[in-house]
Structure formats: structure tokens, C-alpha cells
């Protein structure tokens, strides 16, 4: 176990160093959430007049959604890093050392988590500066970020597995394009469920992105519904564990195909 921990530690430190050498990606990927917050948020400002949003500030309503959506968009690209390491031979070099396979995947998960946390904090600060309120204060914000990280782990691990299995940039780009906006719009990121068409409202209940949004929005409210937060958080945690396990399993398929 301690060997797994040290392996994970060194592999994570390595990934973070690489990430810090290229901070530009972290910054570029913040452009999108800024657009959602400030352009989309202003454009649809009056939508709260329809009622049912639980707030009279649309900005307040979309902040948790934008944080969670950003986590999804950021982590979906994780497979690109894995793909790059596969094609440049770095992954193969690690695979012929005694390093634990799980440590390699854990390192990806931790690196992504750090990226998600940094970006989420920036988005929250920007929203706060623009006048968004966080009724439950720091604990609520911490829960929001935790839920964003969990969602990120789910889709980051999926992306890593795809990167290793299909080994084609186009596949990752295709899957991400196909998933990101539908997952976002089939959720309560921008619209309350009561105002959605029935079928969308139904589908959205099975959307992990929606679990994260619903739970974090509740956690940020003045009176959090802890049952909701814990159940949705629990589902996300279970799915995250499953996806990480699956991504570690893909090393076996990789070993057959390599």
C-alpha cells in the first residue's frame, strides 16, 4: 500500500510539473465559463421572472452550473494527455518499470482534480466579484468544488480510457463534441426542471452533470437539503470509483493491443 502511495505521489508530482509548465491551457479553458457567466447570464437575466428559480438573480442560479459544466469540459480532454503520452512512448516507458498501473491512473485523476479546483475557485471569485451571492458561505463553496471534482473524475477517467483504447485524437474530439452541450442542456444548469419539456425533465434526472448541479445548488442555498446533497454526491462518488476502476482495467486491453 505504501508503495502504491509513493508511486502515486511521484507520478502525480510529475503530471503537475508538466501542467505547471503549460499554464496557458488552464487560462484558455477559463474563457468558456466566463462567456457563459457574463454573456449568457446577462442575455437571459430576465428568465428568472418566469419563477421557480428560487432566486431573483439569474447569475446566482447559474454559478453552480457553470462551475460544474466547466469541470466536465476540462476533464473531458484528459484523454488527450494520455494519448500524447501513449504516442510519444512515455506511457510504455512507465509500463515496463515496476510502477503500479493504478498509480499511473491515480496521478491523472489527481492532476485533473487540481486543475478543476483551481478553475472552480477562479470562476467562483469572478462570479462573486460580479455580485453573485453564496448563502451558505465557504462550506457551500467547498461542497460545490468537491462535487465538480467528482464529476470531473468520472469524465476524466472515461476520457483516459478512450484515449488509451482508441488512440485517436478525432475520437476524443468527436465524443466531447457529442456529449458536452447535450449533457449541459439536458440538465438544470441554465433552466429549472419545471420549465423544461417533459421528456427533457425526465432525461435530466439520469444525467450525472445534473446530479452535481442539483446537489451543489442546494448546498449553496441558505437551507441546504442534505438528503439531496448526500444522495446525489453518493451517486457521483460511486460512478467515479467505477470509472477509475474501469480506466485501470483498460491497461489490460492496452497490453493486448500494443
Amino acid at each position, binding site marked *: 500500500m505504501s508503495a502504491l502511495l509513493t508511486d502515486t505521489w511521484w507520478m502525480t508530482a*510529475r503530471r503537475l510539473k*508538466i501542467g505547471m509548465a503549460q499554464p496557458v491551457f488552464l487560462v484558455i479553458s477559463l474563457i468558456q465559463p466566463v462567456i457563459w457567466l457574463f454573456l449568457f447570464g446577462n442575455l437571459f437575466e430576465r428568465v428568472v421572472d418566469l419563477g421557480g428559480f428560487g432566486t431573483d438573480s439569474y447569475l446566482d442560479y447559474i454559478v453552480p452550473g457553470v462551475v460544474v459544466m466547466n469541470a466536465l469540459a476540462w476533464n473531458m480532454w484528459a484523454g488527450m494527455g494520455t494519448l500524447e503520452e501513449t504516442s*510519444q512512448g512515455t506511457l510504455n516507458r*512507465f*509500463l*515496463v*518499470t*515496476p510502477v503500479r498501473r493504478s498509480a499511473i491512473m491515480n496521478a491523472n485523476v489527481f492532476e485533473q482534480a487540481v486543475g478543476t479546483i483551481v478553475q472552480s475557485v477562479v470562476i467562483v471569485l469572478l462570479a462573486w466579484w460580479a455580485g453573485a451571492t453564496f448563502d451558505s458561505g465557504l462550506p457551500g463553496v467547498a461542497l460545490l468544488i468537491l462535487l465538480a471534482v467528482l464529476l470531473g473524475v468520472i469524465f476524466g477517467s472515461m476520457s483516459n480510457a478512450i484515449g488509451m483504447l482508441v488512440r485517436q485524437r478525432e475520437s476524443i474530439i468527436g465524443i466531447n463534441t457529442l456529449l458536452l452541450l447535450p449533457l449541459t442542456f439536458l440538465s438544470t444548469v441554465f433552466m429549472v426542471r419545471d420549465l423544461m419539456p417533459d421528456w427533457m425533465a425526465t432525461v435530466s434526472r439520469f444525467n450525472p452533470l445534473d446530479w452535481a448541479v442539483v446537489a451543489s445548488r442546494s448546498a449553496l442555498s441558505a437551507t441546504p437539503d442534505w438528503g439531496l446533497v448526500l444522495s446525489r454526491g453518493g451517486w457521483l462518488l460511486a460512478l467515479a470509483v467505477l470509472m477509475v476502476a474501469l480506466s485501470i482495467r483498460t491497461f489490460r486491453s492496452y497490453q493486448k493491443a*500494443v
Partner: protein
Amino acid sequence: MTTTDTSYAVAAYDLVKTYPKNVTALDGLSVTVDAGQIFGLLGPNGAGKTTAVKILTTLARPDSGTAVVAGHDVARHPRRVRTAIGAVAQRSSADPVATGRDNLALQGRLYGMGGTALRRRIDELLERFALVDAADRRVRTYSGGMQRRLEVALGLVHRPAVLFLDEPTTGLDPEARAAMWDEITQLAGDEGLTIVLTTHYLEEADRLADRLAIIDAGRVMATGTPAELKGELYGDAVHIDLRTALDEAAATAARTALAAVPGVREVALDGSRLSARADDGAAVVPGALAALEGAGVAVAAVTAARPSLDDVYLRYAGRRFADADADLVTAGGES
């Protein structure tokens, strides 16, 4: 079957590996490598060399067959094998945005090294591979030769018992190649290190390998020391380049005419090139030219030379090495 034979540094038995779309990379490959020697796997691109190395280094799994490396079965105890070997891939696998020193440090950590011992080992390797000045620069800024030297250093951090070098000089300029050859020769003298290298350069195999296996289409065609393999071809090699490729009737006529020349043996035709053996190559040339002229075959050039590994390859694989290389490259790259 002797699957637990640990007297060899590397022993592979009947390795078979098929990739999707029925591409057979290995078709019953068996080799044994004695400890402390440089063993060459020589073959054209696509012969299965890299696949063999991937299996021996635990990266890939064979469909069938067994392999024992440094005393451990690659399928049953891959971690033990990994601890005992170093593997240097064809292309640079270092983190390009990290420094050479950082790459070496991480590699050492993954083998459980640390502290002063690791620092000392890194300094030693940087010194040995002439990377001291570049140690704290990002690998991205390294020249091709420097990157390759760093790769070899990465493979050696933990003092492995067996080092695998996959095409160690491919893509290097002649100067860097000569330097790498010296380095490999020196390494073999150290610490009883066993080196398994793959190459598609005949000259490289001839120069570096204590023993070698000639590989074609996923099988071993011949094994021996370079001298033994060349010695099997007694006499000189005579090569006659024809002006045009021959149709079947003309080919038979040319072969018959050449074989009838006194002192000429083992006539073979490969495209527009006739090859034969003779005890004294230069002495048979006039007779051979006269015989071919008599058969109506136009000759472009003639050479007579001591046998090379290329001749060995021709004898076992039935075609010229360079042609096999070209064929396989156009047929779908390497495996």
C-alpha cells in the same frame, strides 16, 4: 518444455503474436541469450523485432509461447522482470517539458531509489553520457543524439541485469551513431550487463553483436556469431547486376549459364541481380561475364567481395535485406 530454464539471461520459446486484421507479428519465435553478451535481433522493418522486445519487456502479451527474462517468467511474474530489466524504446520517451535530471530522478523513484544513492547515480549517468551541461535544460531542447543518450541513461538508472535497446541508432547521424556504438560496446563490458538490441542495420549487428538471430516474418531464420553466420557461406560473394529484369526463360538461361562456369556455386537470382559464391571471386569474373554474354544477358556491373551479413540474409530469407526492408515498409510499416 523448459519454461523454467534460468541459465539464460533471456529465453523465449515459440512466441506467437497476432494483431487485429490477422497481422502475424511473431510466428513461433524462439531465442536464447547468454548472460553478459550483446545479442542482436537482426531483421528488416516489420520482421517482428519490436514485437519480440515488447513481449520480453512485459509490455505486450503473446498469444502463445513463454519467455523467461532475468530468471523470471514474463507472464507469471512481470513485476520481477520489470525490476531486473531496462528498456530503451526506439523513440524518445522522456518528458519533453522536464529536464534531463528530473527525468532520471523520476525513473529512479519508480524503481524505489532515492536520496544520495539516486543523486550519485544520476550524476554518474549524466557524466557517462556527456549530458552534464544539458542536465538542467528541458529535454525538448536536446538534439537527437542527446535524447537518445538520455533514453539509454533512463534504462540504466536502476542498474538492470538485462538492457533492451530497440533500434538504438535509427535516425542518428553517422557521428552520433559511431558514438552510440562505442557506448554500447563499453556498457557490455560493465557489471556483466546483458544487452539485447534490435537493428535493421547489418553493419550494426556485425559490429556490436556477440551473437545474433536473423529474423524474418516473425521467425528466427538463423542464429550464431556474425563470424559463424558468414563462415557458413564459404568463399567470396559474386554479385552481377543485370541491365534489365529477366523473364522466366531468360532467367533460367542466365542461371544455367552462370552455374556452368567452373568454380561458381549457389547461383541465385533476385530481381535483376545474380548472386553466386566462388572460392576466388575475382578469378571467376571473366568466365562468368563470357557465359552470360553467350546466353544473351546484358550485364551492368559486377562485384566480388568477402561475404557480408546481407549474403547470409539472402541465403536464409531468399531475398536481399534492403528489398525485404522496402517491401515491408510499403506493405504496412513496422510492428
